């Protein structure tokens, strides 16, 4: 437990995480617990825009065919100057088929450029199938998503990775436009790809945990703002210990349908 969590321990942990958002990043930084051996900490900002919808505007017979377009830009202070700077982008697109209003299967492509310390960009490409299911519950909406990524970087062995995501959204009765959002996504590598710094060893690769608030402008537009922790397994065969990176980010997402 960090001192800041001790101070607000009567609250649920997700509320504690939200309250942390109100604090300036520098205050947050000094409140971090001592890092464990093999663990590095950094602060970040992730931004995301997602557009999705069906192709019925083109032709009514395409009502079950869906298009997913997404862009992300990621910033962190894990650099020599410790200033927040861009380190990664993401472009993702996919075609989907809605088996029902709740169940969609996807086939997609991702381009992930990452800037490293000598400013050289490493471009990762991934092809993937995915399945998404939206489950209504009396408390809110639960989204389950599974993705299988085939990841490629020029001159290296392809990596295979699974991504499992569970997301929960609940609207408040006093203000239906406002809600809270919790999600977690866990990544596992199916194979060792040790030459590429982006890939890593087989087994646990990373976990992303998010707690935040959503605001629904209308049925087609929603924003989600909150805290996301990225725990990344940086272990390599040449290290005598397990190495992990923890990135504490402010996450801003805009979701738009049509």
């Amino acid at each position, binding site marked *: 437990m960090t001192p800041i969590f001790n101070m607000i321990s009567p609250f649920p942990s997700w509320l504690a995480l939200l309250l942390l958002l109100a604090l300036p990043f520098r205050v947050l930084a000094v409140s971090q617990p001592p890092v464990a051996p093999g663990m590095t900490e950094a602060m970040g900002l992730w931004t995301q825009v997602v557009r999705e919808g069906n192709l019925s505007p083109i032709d009514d017979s395409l009502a079950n065919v869906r298009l997913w377009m997404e862009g992300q830009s990621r910033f962190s202070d894990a650099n020599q100057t410790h200033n927040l700077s861009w380190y990664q982008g993401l472009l993702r697109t996919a075609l989907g088929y809605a088996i029902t209003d709740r169940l969609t299967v996807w086939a997609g492509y991702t381009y992930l450029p990452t800037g490293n310390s000598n400013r050289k960009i490493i471009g990762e490409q991934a092809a993937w199938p995915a399945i998404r299911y939206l489950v*209504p519950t009396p408390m809110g909406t639960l989204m389950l998503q599974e993705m299988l990524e085939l990841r490629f970087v020029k001159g290296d062995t392809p990596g295979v990775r699974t991504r499992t995501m569970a997301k929960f959204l609940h609207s408040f009765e006093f203000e239906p436009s406002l809600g809270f959002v919790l999600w977690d996504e866990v990544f596992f590598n199916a194979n060792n790809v040790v030459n590429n710094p982006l890939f890593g060893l087989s087994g646990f690769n990373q976990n992303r945990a998010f707690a935040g608030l959503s605001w629904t402008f209308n049925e087609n537009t929603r924003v989600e703002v909150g805290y996301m922790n990225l725990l990344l397994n940086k272990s390599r065969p040449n290290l005598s210990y397990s190495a992990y990176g923890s990135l504490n980010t402010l996450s801003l997402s805009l979701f738009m349908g049509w």
Partner: protein
Amino acid sequence: MLMTLRMSVMVVLLTVAFFFNGCAIIQHDAEIDKKRLADDLIPAEALAHQLGQKDLTCSNIKSDELSAKPKEGAPQGPVWSNFIIQVSGCGKVKTYKIQCETKSACFLND
């Protein structure tokens, strides 16, 4: 040869299983949507009543459901229950589009 045969049988069995699973999910989701629409209609009509009393300046309001259907909205979010509800009273009529995410989260779509 035997391996190829086994593989072919497995692929056929998996395809058949996937097909029947898909059919079961379609039926399952249709039942969910039907129940959700029925559940959400109650708070949607309550909201329409409340709005109608104010807009029509009339306390004796009658409401009629003109349409009810599920619709996926912004990505990675809820499937909405969308209603068109007509309210009438004191010789006046007004129609509202009301969306519900859950029973407790209904609002007017202007």
